[in-house]
């Protein structure tokens, strides 16, 4: 039987210097599902997300204990190349961060450096990625223009297209709509629903309605601990733990 849990964390602890940001996180992420991570600011949900593709490596003075298994292999094992991990596990950030390059070059940047050189293949990839990110119709005639000319919502969809062009298995999204207006947010939420057919999506969000609308599973974090983790519907209707209920109903956080 195929294991549906594409990422598993086992007793993960994470430290910024002496400060323990995550405590004993054991959590499974299922394939082709949207998993939402929620919790008040500073609860460790973004830290966990960035740990899943080793983006926290960039910060000096941090260290990880425990294991993060991606397809059964610990991505923190000494023989694992973080660059390889990040090719398979893509990421979209809180603020749209396109490169100051053309729309076309933004998308081909990663694939080219990964060795894709054929112009026709690259063009096909650009179209495919932009279509997946539902941006193609808006930009197909201006691919040569700077990505900085796009609106915030378009830029964020471009960033999603850019991540998809690497053909990752998992897409991590760190509050991808928090800098966007409601219309752009709705577009991206819709997009996430389409993408889960092909990708496993893990999303950090501050917006509880958003988590309820788009996710299949929800994990609630508080003070670096995973308080409750189950089907989104259950979390939002009859959570087992009082803290979860208090947070969801807006009594704190």
């Amino acid at each position, binding site marked *: 039987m195929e294991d549906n849990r594409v990422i598993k964390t086992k007793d993960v602890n994470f430290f910024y210097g002496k400060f323990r940001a995550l405590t004993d996180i054991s959590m499974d992420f299922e394939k082709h599902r949207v998993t939402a991570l929620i919790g008040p600011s500073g609860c460790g949900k973004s830290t966990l997300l960035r740990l899943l*593709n080793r*983006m926290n490596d*960039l910060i*000096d003075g941090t260290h990880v204990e425990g294991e993060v298994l991606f397809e059964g292999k610990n991505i923190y094992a000494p023989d694992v190349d973080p*660059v*390889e*991990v*990040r*090719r*398979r596990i*893509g*990421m979209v*950030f809180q*603020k749209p*961060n*396109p*490169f*100051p390059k053309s729309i076309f070059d933004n998308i081909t*940047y*990663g694939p080219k*450096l*990964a060795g894709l050189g054929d112009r026709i293949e690259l063009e096909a990839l650009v179209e495919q990625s932009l279509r997946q990110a539902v941006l193609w119709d808006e930009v197909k005639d201006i691919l040569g223009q*700077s990505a*900085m000319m796009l609106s915030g919502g378009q830029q964020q969809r471009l*960033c999603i297209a*850019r*991540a998809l062009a*690497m053909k990752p298995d998992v897409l991590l999204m760190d509050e991808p709509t928090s800098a966007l207006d409601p219309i752009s947010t709705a577009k991206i939420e819709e997009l996430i629903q389409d993408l889960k057919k092909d990708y496993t999506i893990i999303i950090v969000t501050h917006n509880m309605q958003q988590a309820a609308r788009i996710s299949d599973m929800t994990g609630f974090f508080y003070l670096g601990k995973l308080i409750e983790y189950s089907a989104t519907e259950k979390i939002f209707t009859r959570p087992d733990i009082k803290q979860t209920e208090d947070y969801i109903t807006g009594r704190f956080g």
Partner: protein
Amino acid sequence: MALQTSMRWRYFKEGVFFGLVRLSAFLLTAALGGLLLYIFVNGLGVLSWDFLTLPPTDSMTKGGIMPAILGTLYLTTGAILVALPLGIVSAVYLTEYAKQGPLVRVIRVGVNCLAGVPSIVFGLFGLGLFVVFLQFGSCILSGALTLGILILPTIIGASEEALKAVPQTFREASLALGVSKWQTIVRIVLPNALPGILTGSILGIGRAAGETAPVMFTAAAFYTAKLPSSIFDEVMALPFHIYVLATAGTHIEATRPIQFGTILVLVGLVLGVDLIAIVIRSTMRKRKRW
């Protein structure tokens, strides 16, 4: 009533303070303007096509300053060729690779100290190392290396600032696409930092062009009519030429106009280079949007 008086007192203080600020800004500009005007008025008379294209004649009391212009161009170009790659690479190491800690702090302090070392010390260092110990002799190579070290701190400083100004989000975006750190630096960080690096470096060039002490021991000839044929030849240099004419010649009074003319050319060169830096910076600023 009391309130009004105290307000009036405050406005008065504000007026005095603004006046002082304005005055100091004005004095600064006036000093620069006065200096330039003085050089311009005194030097313009000798400026001619011949002055720029002919070598000095009659024990440097007549003729032009072409060998000195050319020598200064060679020396500064050489200095840039030495210092730019070295400076950028050092800055990349300091900002992108090195773990921020005591070692990096020591290196930074070292770089800053290097920037504060008097230029005559660089001259003697260049004499000791390049001219004597490495036996390059007094030549373009020795002079360019010495000037290169002299402007290295400027270039490292400018490059570090420019690298730090590249948004961290660009680095993250690139790394998150499974691009290696080295490729991220080459493809994303450096291209975006380049305008800043160049601006800072060009200001360094201006400094290198104007320095006298480092070149007088390492590269500059008192007088040579022949143009250098290799980097192992001595050259004349504008600042040293001025120094020689004004202090060591036998006709100091008679060469006054030539001295001013040479100063004008040197100042013009340095200001021209600075102007290029300013133009680059402003066009790049318009282009970048983050």
